[in-house]
Every structure is written in structure tokens, then in C-alpha cells.
């Protein structure tokens, strides 16, 4: 009972850490915005259900289902509504930390039973080492991407899987599959998951050896259930790979390509060249990579962790001391020790690479020859969570062996006190949120946590929402990434710095920086900006369907000189976008929003429309009156063409996808008049020949005008959307059946328990 109280106390304490010690702001921004903590409903509705076009933030969208985030954003929505009085992000972070601790404890409990208090403490210390591992701080907790939830979900999932096999409990497999589906985002965090799987291969082999048949059956069932439950986005993920378009390679193909592997070689060498194995051996993150790449965390490492380094030998000392007792300990524990040591040594290699003369060569060989290995290019990041898991597991088993052999209470108590102190001291910067108080890179007084967006931004969003357009917005000045900067509501030096939320807040597409465009195009853009060929830049914006421009007026000097506006030197990208630049590309000023933002139309010289007719594919016409169109959804447009007399191209300024099809709206019959061409190196164009239409089709397909020209009503439709609802149906039916099965299992178990109790009485 006392142990449960201890566990409960630690669980609550860990859940409260973010609330008590990390301030009260939201940690948002970066590559996935993390704004689902603030706007989960908008994120779910306007972003996660898109298959094409509207499925990227601050850049052009291709065929890709974002639905893998949908259940997660619904979960956040539920949590936000239920605990509306709390910081949703901190609640999720706190639960992640405490559940990670708890389930690592339970996972160890599969082998280490609570025979005495020392067994309990062995598990507690290992779980502390797991929850407060420096490898997690520097990877998962630092970027706070979706993969962060691996901290809790991985031990939960592994615990359920092993328990299911050992106790023959299929319901655990079912529950596991459902849990992983809610956190589908983790299935997409493939590199971190793959690294963790490598770390647990020895342990899983051990489990497999004990119960081969059940392991095989349960694994198969688990994989099938995961596939069916996630069919609604899995389908599009794989379908897109098998229906590749010109220049639009998907993630799988990109990862497997020769170019990617070659480019990776350079990165692997650069990242690993100064790694020293001594640091991970002493349970510390690599020092030199922080120094070489100017990581903001380096100062904390230098002033805190390096001072603890001499004491950190205690971790390895415990592992080595346990090795001395192996002959006396039970076979079960010596096996576990061996498996966890093996796992740790393998993971250390992948985490460090630069070991002896062979390490780098072996890693490069694996990169070249093992399909998919290319995903581990930033090995320090991908293998960070695996280091956490492997070392904590090894520590737990080692402590169990030591405590079993050293029967002296005083020595064991000293080990417990010393180790607890050391783990907590190592975790001090994380516990007190010091990593989150680091200013924006290259600045001293600009910070990224925020409480809310400023009112001017909300006014701008409200106004943009009402503009009837499917064309794109552009933010000026353009930066090095594809980020926008939004000042905090109250705090002057706090900014949201991340991908644009315009897509899900205003349902409008936008560009923000060089990374908003494909690499080859953005290089040309950059060159033209620096060479002051502003007319070329304007033409480029025109071709990218930029119709409106938002100018941010309050970029501080410090931000101007930060990495965001530095290309060759600090601030050069900002300075290049001078008055002349703005004069060239800006058109009519539509409205100011406080002193922060001004909304403009693009200069009349670069007027454009998303869909238009032209007889020359290389030029955008001045007259768009022949075509009227309406965006019905991200996958569907209705197009009305008037007075089509001669052969012309219908151009659609959205990334080329061969699955975009044109239909006659009335008859739902495909329009087959010409091939589907690539326009401006990225967009779509179809040749429409009125004579051919008149010749091949009856008059009910078009309207013939007295001057022999025709009017057409067409539908532009993205074909893979046909499978959108089928996917949802398959996943929903599977989900409902599994939930009913779990309820049945639970009720039967409760009934059996009750019957047994009555019989006993």
C-alpha cells in the first residue's frame, strides 16, 4: 500500500512540474507550429482532413493525407474543453512525463517483482533515469514535436505487448492498437520509433524465445489491427507512392533515392566527426556537436552538466558492479543484464558513430546498403530516445542484481540516496525549464514562448477570412525559413516564430520565406532578390499565384540580425528587400492592422488568377474574364468558361498532380481533349479544343453561342478523394468492433469476479 502511495505521489508531482516550474506561456512555433494546443478545433477541421493543396502550412501542398494528426488533435480538443482552466500543453507534457515514469516502472515490474523495498527502489530509480534522461531533454523535449509522446506511449505500448504475450491477453493487443491509433502521429515519427525498436530487439527476441507461437500470432494480429485502424491515412500514404507525379516524389521515394543517400554522407560526416564516446558512456549528451553548431543549450551543458561529469561515473559503476555478481544471481537476471547491456552498446554506437577507425565507415555502409537507414542521418537526435530507454533498463536490472547481492541495508541506502541525487541534479535544468528560457537563436532578448497572439493579428485573420479568394497570400519580408513572426499579446519581446497558421485559422494558403518554395525555385528567387531584379521576383510571385501581400511592419533590429534574415551575412536578406523591392511588388494598400501589419494587393503588373485560359503556357494573360471559378473544397473546383472559340490551355496554379481530373459538371464525364501538362515547372495545364468537343460530344455537354464559340461548365476534381470516405469507413468499423470487444471483455471479467466472490461467501 505504501508503495502505491509513493507511486501516486511521484505521478502527481511529475504531472505538476510544467505548471509549477515552466511559467505559464505556451511553447509554440517551429516546423509543426504546435498551435494545436491553442486551436485544436481549427487545426482539426481546416487542416488535418485535407488530402491536397490545403495540407501544408506556409508552403505548397502535394498529395498527402494529414489525417494521421486528426485523432490526436481531437484528443487535445477534448482535453482542452475538459480542463479549460489549465494550460493544455502543460497538462499534456506533465502527463507525458508522469505516464512515461509510471509505465517504465510497470514494464520493469514484469521481471522485477516487489519482493522487498529494494526491488521497488531499483524500479523507481530506473524509471527516474528514464523520465529525466538528458538524451530525451536534448531531442524529444527540445523540439517538442509529436514524437515527444514516445516518452509515455513507448513504454505503455511495450508493456501491453509483452503482458499480452506472457499472460495470453489478446485484449491488451487490441487496447494497444487503439492507443497507437489515437497517437497515429507516433506511427509517423518513424525514425525515432525505428531507433527504439532497434533498442528493444534483444528484449523482444528474449520474449519471442519464451513463447514463439503466441508471439508470432499476436504480432500479426497487432499489425493487421494497426493497418485497419489507420487505413484512413495509410491508404493515401502508400497510394501516393505508387502514383508518383513528375517532380512530386513522396517521402518514401525521396528517402530511398540515390541523391538523398549521397547527400546524407556529407551530413553524417559533419554531424559525427567530433563525437566522443566518453559522454554517452557517462550518461551525457555529446558535447562537441553543441559547441561546433552553436547550440543554445551549450552554455547550460558547460556550466552544469560538465561539472557533474566526474560524479556521473556512478551510473557506469553500478552497471559494472552488477557484472561482478552475475555468477551468483538468478539466471533470469543475468539474461536480462546481458540483453540490456547488448542493447545499450548497440545504441551507443548508433548514437555516437565516431568510434575507432571503423564506426563512421560502418554507419556509412549501412546508410548506403540498408533500405530506409537514411532516416537516421541526425543520429544524435533519432537515437536519443533509444539511449534513454536502453540505459534506464540496464540501470534497473543492474540495481536489482546489486541489491539482491548486497544485503547490507546501509550500503543499499547510500546507493539509493546517491543515485537519486545524481539523477535529479542532472535533470535540474530540465525540471526548472532552463532549456525553455533560452532566447531565439542569434538573439539575446527575443523569446518564443507566448501567451496568445496580439489583437492586430486576430483582426488581420478576421479580415482575410472574409476575402473571397483561393489564391495565395505572401508575407514580407521573406525570411530564410518558412516562418512567420507574431508578437505576443502582452509581452513585447516574445514572438511566435514558426510555420504560418493562416491555413487553419483563415483557410487561406500563404508563403512566408525561401523554404515555402521548392529548392530549385527558391534559389532563383534568392538570386533575383540579391541582384535587385525585382521585376523577375514579381513575375515569380505572379506564377506562384500570389494575389495578396501582408507586410509585417514591426520586425525588431535584433530579429533582423538573427538567423531568420541572414543568408550570406547577418540581416542581408532583410536589407535586400528594401523600398524599391516593395515599390515593385506591392499594389493597392487594402488595410492597416494597427502598426503591425499592412495588407496589399499585388502590383497590377503581376495580376494573376488561380485558374485561367491562355494560348501561351509561358505567359500569364492580362484578361481573366473568360473563366469564372469557385473553390468548393480543397479537392474540388467548379469552372465556368465563356466564349471559347479557339484551342486554349486551362491553367490551374497548384502543384502538378496527375490525379487532378477535369469533368463536365452536368454529365460527370471526363473531359478528354488534351494531355495534362506541367506549367511553370510546377503547375497544371490542360489543352481544351472547342472543335473537338463539338465534334465528339452532343450539345447537352456544352452551350453553343451564336458566334459558334462554346460555354463550358467543368469540375476540377482530385481523384484520390474517391477513397477518402472508404478509408474512414474501414477504420471506423474496425475501431467500433474493437471497442465493443474490449467492453465485452471487461464486463465478462467483472461478472466472473463477482460470481467468484459470491461463491466464496
Amino acid at each position, binding site marked *: 500500500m505504501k508503495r502505491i502511495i509513493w507511486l501516486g505521489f511521484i505521478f502527481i508531482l511529475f504531472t505538476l512540474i510544467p505548471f509549477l516550474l515552466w511559467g505559464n506561456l505556451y511553447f509554440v512555433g517551429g516546423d509543426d507550429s504546435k498551435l494545436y494546443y491553442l486551436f485544436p478545433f481549427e487545426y482539426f477541421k481546416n487542416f488535418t482532413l485535407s488530402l491536397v493543396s490545403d495540407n501544408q502550412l506556409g508552403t505548397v501542398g502535394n498529395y498527402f493525407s494529414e489525417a494521421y494528426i486528426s485523432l490526436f488533435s481531437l484528443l487535445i480538443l477534448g482535453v482542452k474543453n475538459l480542463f479549460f482552466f489549465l494550460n493544455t500543453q502543460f497538462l499534456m507534457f506533465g502527463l507525458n512525463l508522469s505516464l512515461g515514469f509510471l509505465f517504465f516502472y510497470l514494464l520493469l515490474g514484469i521481471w522485477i517483482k516487489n519482493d522487498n523495498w529494494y526491488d521497488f527502489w531499483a524500479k523507481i530509480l530506473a524509471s527516474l533515469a528514464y523520465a529525466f534522461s538528458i538524451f530525451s531533454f536534448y531531442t524529444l523535449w527540445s523540439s517538442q514535436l509529436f514524437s515527444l509522446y514516445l516518452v509515455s506511449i513507448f513504454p505503455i505500448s511495450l508493456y501491453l505487448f509483452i503482458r499480452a504475450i506472457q499472460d495470453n491477453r489478446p485484449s491488451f493487443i487490441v487496447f494497444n492498437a487503439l492507443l497507437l491509433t489515437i497517437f497515429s502521429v507516433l506511427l509517423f515519427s518513424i525514425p525515432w520509433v525505428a531507433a527504439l525498436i532497434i533498442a528493444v530487439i534483444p528484449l523482444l527476441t528474449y520474449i519471442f524465445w519464451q513463447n514463439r507461437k503466441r508471439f508470432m500470432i499476436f504480432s500479426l494480429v497487432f499489425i493487421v489491427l494497426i493497418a485497419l485502424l489507420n487505413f484512413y491515412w495509410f491508404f493515401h500514404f502508400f497510394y501516393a507512392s505508387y502514383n508518383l507525379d513528375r517532380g512530386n516524389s513522396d517521402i518514401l521515394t525521396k528517402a530511398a533515392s540515390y541523391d538523398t543517400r549521397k547527400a546524407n554522407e556529407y551530413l553524417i560526416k559533419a554531424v559525427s566527426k567530433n563525437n566522443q564516446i566518453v559522454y554517452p558512456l*557517462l550518461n551525457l549528451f555529446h558535447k562537441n556537436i553543441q559547441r561546433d553548431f552553436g547550440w543554445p543549450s551549450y552554455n547550460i551543458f558547460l556550466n552544469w552538466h560538465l561539472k557533474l561529469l*566526474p560524479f556521473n561515473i556512478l551510473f557506469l559503476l553500478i552497471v559494472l558492479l552488477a*557484472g561482478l555478481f552475475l555468477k551468483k544471481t538468478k539466471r533470469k537476471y543475468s539474461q536480462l543484464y*546481458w540483453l540490456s547491456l*547488448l542493447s545499450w552498446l548497440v545504441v551507443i554506437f548508433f548514437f555516437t558513430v565516431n568510434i575507432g577507425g571503423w564506426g563512421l*565507415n560502418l554507419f556509412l555502409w549501412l546508410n548506403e546498403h540498408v533500405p530506409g537507414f537514411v532516416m537516421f542521418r541526425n543520429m544524435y537526435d533519432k537515437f536519443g530516445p533509444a539511449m534513454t530507454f536502453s540505459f534506464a533498463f540496464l540501470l534497473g536490472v543492474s540495481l536489482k542484481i546489486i541489491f539482491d547481492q548486497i544485503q547490507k541495508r546501509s550500503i543499499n541506502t547510500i546507493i539509493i540516496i546517491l543515485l537519486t541525487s545524481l539523477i535529479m541534479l542532472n535533470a535540474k535544468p530540465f525540471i526548472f525549464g532552463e532549456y525553455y528560457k533560452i532566447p531565439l537563436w542569434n538573439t539575446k532578448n527575443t523569446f518564443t514562448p507566448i501567451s496568445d497572439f496580439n489583437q492586430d493579428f486576430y483582426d488581420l485573420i478576421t479580415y482575410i477570412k472574409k476575402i473571397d479568394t483561393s489564391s495565395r497570400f505572401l508575407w514580407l519580408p521573406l525570411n530564410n525559413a518558412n516562418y512567420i513572426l507574431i508578437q505576443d499579446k502582452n509581452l513585447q519581446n516574445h514572438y511566435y516564430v514558426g510555420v504560418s497558421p493562416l491555413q487553419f485559422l483563415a483557410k487561406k494558403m500563404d508563403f512566408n520565406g525561401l523554404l515555402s518554395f521548392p529548392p530549385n525555385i527558391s534559389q532563383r528567387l534568392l538570386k533575383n532578390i540579391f541582384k535587385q531584379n525585382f521585376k523577375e521576383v514579381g513575375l515569380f510571385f505572379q506564377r506562384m499565384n500570389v494575389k495578396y501581400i501582408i507586410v509585417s511592419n514591426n520586425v525588431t533590429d535584433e530579429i533582423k540580425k538573427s538567423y531568420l534574415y541572414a543568408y550570406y551575412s547577418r540581416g542581408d536578406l532583410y536589407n535586400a528587400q528594401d523600398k524599391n523591392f516593395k515599390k515593385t511588388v506591392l499594389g493597392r494598400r487594402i488595410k492597416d492592422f494597427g502598426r503591425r501589419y499592412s495588407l496589399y494587393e499585388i502590383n497590377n503588373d503581376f495580376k494573376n488568377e488561380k485558374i485561367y485560359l491562355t494560348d501561351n503556357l509561358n505567359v500569364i494573360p492580362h484578361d481573366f474574364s473568360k473563366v469564372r471559378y469557385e473553390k468548393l473544397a480543397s479537392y474540388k473546383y467548379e469552372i465556368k468558361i465563356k466564349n471559347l472559340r479557339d484551342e486554349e490551355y486551362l491553367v490551374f496554379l497548384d502543384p502538378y498532380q496527375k490525379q487532378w481530373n477535369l469533368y463536365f459538371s452536368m454529365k460527370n464525364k471526363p473531359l478528354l481533349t488534351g494531355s495534362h501538362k506541367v506549367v511553370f515547372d510546377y503547375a497544371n495545364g490542360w489543352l481544351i479544343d472547342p472543335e473537338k468537343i463539338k465534334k465528339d460530344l452532343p450539345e447537352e455537354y456544352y452551350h453553343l453561342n451564336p458566334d459558334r464559340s462554346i460555354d463550358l461548365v467543368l469540375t476540377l476534381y482530385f481523384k484520390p478523394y474517391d477513397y477518402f470516405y472508404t478509408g474512414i469507413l474501414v477504420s471506423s468499423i474496425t475501431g467500433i468492433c474493437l471497442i465493443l470487444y474490449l467492453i465485452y471483455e471487461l464486463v465478462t471479467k467483472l461478472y466472473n469476479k463477482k460470481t467468484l466472490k459470491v461463491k466464496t461467501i
Partner: protein
Amino acid sequence: MRKFLILIFWVISVMALLNSGKISDIKNQLGPATFFILIYLSIVLIFKITTKIHIFFSLIFLFLIPPLILAGYDKSVETLSTLLYYFLILIALQQGVELFFKRKNV
């Protein structure tokens, strides 16, 4: 089994030696780590060196590392920590062999 393993280790080492012609080439081809491990493993098996001796060596390296880091001997630290890593591999290999080939309660 022990004799069989010794034979395999020596054969691999000798083959590497014959293929290269020079000791330095072996270093380049197999890497010092592999060569070291193979030779050492066979010695371990011939003389039945126990895990305890490996742990003893590892402990010495472990205690030497912090003062060397503090004194700024980066190269020595790198060599010692790499050696420590190899000794940990040896412990793991030896444990593995014992667990697989000796069915007694080790």
C-alpha cells in the same frame, strides 16, 4: 565449442593478415577494434579469462577518465573511453557465450 570458437577467431585473423600483407593494412581493412577483439577473444578463450578481469580493467579506465577530462587530455580520454567501450563489448560477448553454451546458473 570453446576450441571451435578459438579456431574461427584465429582463422579470420590469419586470413585478414594474409590478404593484406601488412599489419597496417589489416588495421585499415578490419579496423583496430575488430582485430583487437578477435585476437583478444581467442586469448580470453585459451586462458579462460573471466568476466571479472574485464570488469576490473573497465573500472580502471572508468576511474581514470574524469581526472583526464578535467586536466584537458582529450586524446587520452578518447582512447581510454574507446577501450572502455570495447571492454564492455567483451563483457557482453563473454556473457552471451556463457549464457548460450553453458546451461548452468551463471
